């Protein structure tokens, strides 16, 4: 890989250990995946923030980087943490909360912004063609497919390295020829709800692995495409999709999806028929329009006793949508920021079954949270959560 003189110096440790180790990560990965140079990134977004997921193992490394002066050289943001600062923080042990705060503070010391959301694109939308180094897989797919920005699926450490150096190795979907579709998808059935998009994503992720699909016309809203991408990236390794058939009719492998595929994927995401004691919306974190939609569905209703309703979003959206947030909270729901079901300890909150409109959460929760799950559109979720 070709390195500039300044990059060479960093690799040799002339700017200290933190930058040296970051540079070693980038150069090694670049070599491994055939990059010939590093390219500047507009922003880095880091997963690996919640104490539930990270555990104690990472604290030592993050502390070493932070104490040896590692600071982000580009705009850098953080994924959700294990609790919000108002509601869940009071329900966990002091030790857990301190560990989480320690992790967040270490990142802050590296000048990484504690945005604590998986939807950094709602805070600042990347422009088409901008290079990024993002490691939240749902955000990667959204950035590449809906926003037209360019990012590989980074891991937590490689996104940190990119933040410190301000660059990423030039391979994968940073190169135009690797962004072209490799398979054509024809959806032979109508997609009616956000969970249909999610189920389609789970179905395709398993089939496609890391192939890039082009849909033969897919006309979902941005919120629905967000569900599709998040799900695809969970059951597979997809970094992006195209919503339109490529103009040049290339010879592409074709896959058709029928209604039974969507039905099967949906039922595989329902591990119980029991009534939930937690209803969760907001994976990935809700957009403003999703918060508004939930408020519209719940207006005039009351969350039933023995059931919790969580609507997870970023602080920015929570502030911007204040009146809708009030509507949800007046009905007895909790609009939580900085966290979500997957990165917190819902089992310790006595949740035995939960319902969600997120195929990604339904896909991961039985293993990551060890609880039974039902996938249902937001309209059903609110019906189940509220008194009739």
């Amino acid at each position: 890989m070709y390195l500039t003189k300044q990059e060479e110096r960093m690799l040799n440790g002339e700017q200290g250990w933190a930058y040296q180790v970051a540079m070693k990560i980038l150069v090694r990965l670049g070599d491994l995946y055939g990059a010939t140079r590093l390219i500047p990134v507009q922003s880095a977004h880091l997963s690996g923030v919640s104490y539930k997921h990270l555990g104690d193992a990472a604290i030592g490394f993050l502390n070493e980087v932070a104490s040896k002066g590692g600071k982000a050289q580009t705009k850098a943001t953080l994924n959700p943490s294990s609790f919000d600062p108002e509601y869940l923080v009071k329900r966990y042990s002091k030790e857990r909360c301190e560990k989480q705060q320690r992790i967040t503070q270490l990142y802050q010391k590296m000048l990484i912004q504690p945005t604590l959301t998986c939807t950094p694109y709602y805070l600042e939308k990347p422009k088409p063609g901008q290079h990024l180094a993002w490691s939240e897989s749902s955000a990667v797919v959204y950035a590449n497919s809906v926003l037209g920005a360019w990012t590989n699926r980074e891991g937590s450490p490689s996104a940190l390295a990119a933040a410190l150096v301000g660059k990423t190795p030039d391979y994968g979907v940073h190169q135009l020829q690797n962004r072209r579709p490799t398979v054509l998808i024809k959806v032979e059935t109508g997609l009616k709800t956000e969970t249909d998009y999610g189920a389609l994503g789970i179905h395709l992720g398993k089939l496609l692995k890391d192939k890039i699909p082009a849909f033969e016309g897919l006309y979902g809203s941005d919120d629905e495409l967000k569900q599709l991408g998040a799900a695809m990236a969970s059951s597979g390794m997809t970094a992006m999709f195209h919503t339109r058939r490529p103009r040049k009719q290339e010879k592409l492998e074709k896959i058709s999806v029928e209604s039974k595929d969507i039905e099967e994927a949906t039922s595989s995401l329902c591990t119980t028929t029991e009534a939930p004691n937690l209803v969760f919306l907001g994976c990935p974190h809700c957009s403003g329009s999703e918060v508004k939609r939930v408020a519209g569905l719940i207006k005039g209703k009351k969350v039933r006793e023995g059931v919790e309703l969580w609507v997870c979003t970023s602080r920015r959206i929570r502030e911007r949508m204040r009146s809708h947030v009030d509507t949800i909270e007046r009905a007895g729901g909790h609009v939580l920021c900085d966290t979500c079901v997957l990165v917190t300890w819902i089992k310790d909150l006595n949740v035995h079954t939960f319902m969600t409109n997120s195929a990604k959460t339904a896909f991961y929760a039985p293993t990551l949270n060890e609880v039974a799950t039902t996938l249902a559109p937001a309209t059903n979720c609110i019906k189940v959560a509220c008194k009739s």
Partner: protein
Amino acid sequence: MKEPKRTLRGRGIAPGHGSGAALVSRMPLSFLGGVDYNSGVVVEKNHDLKGELLKDKILCFPSGHGSTVGSYVLYSIVKKGLGPKAIVNQVADTVVVVGAIIAEIPMVDQIDIAQIKTGDIVEVDGDKGTVKIAREAS
């Protein structure tokens, strides 16, 4: 006991030398969730190394998988003195590569690990990308 001193040639991923007893798995390994970061013991359900200590071993397995946070688990056990001395993979994946780099242990890939048996004494050269089988397990 045979003393064949075979050398397997692969690709150097992380520099350095490490030698010791091989611990060989036929299955992919996820460090996050699969290895306990307090003890360095493999805890992944249904794994052929379940219950094994990684300490001072030359850890040979086909490939890594799972969360990229696994890199930090490898770093953590190595810093505690509970980690492997070197890693040998069939196919390097990002999680293990980054883990070996930050933990500063040698790593080699593109090795046919079927050639190595648990208990073989092997020498890994992460610069040259070689794995020398110095003594075969009886």
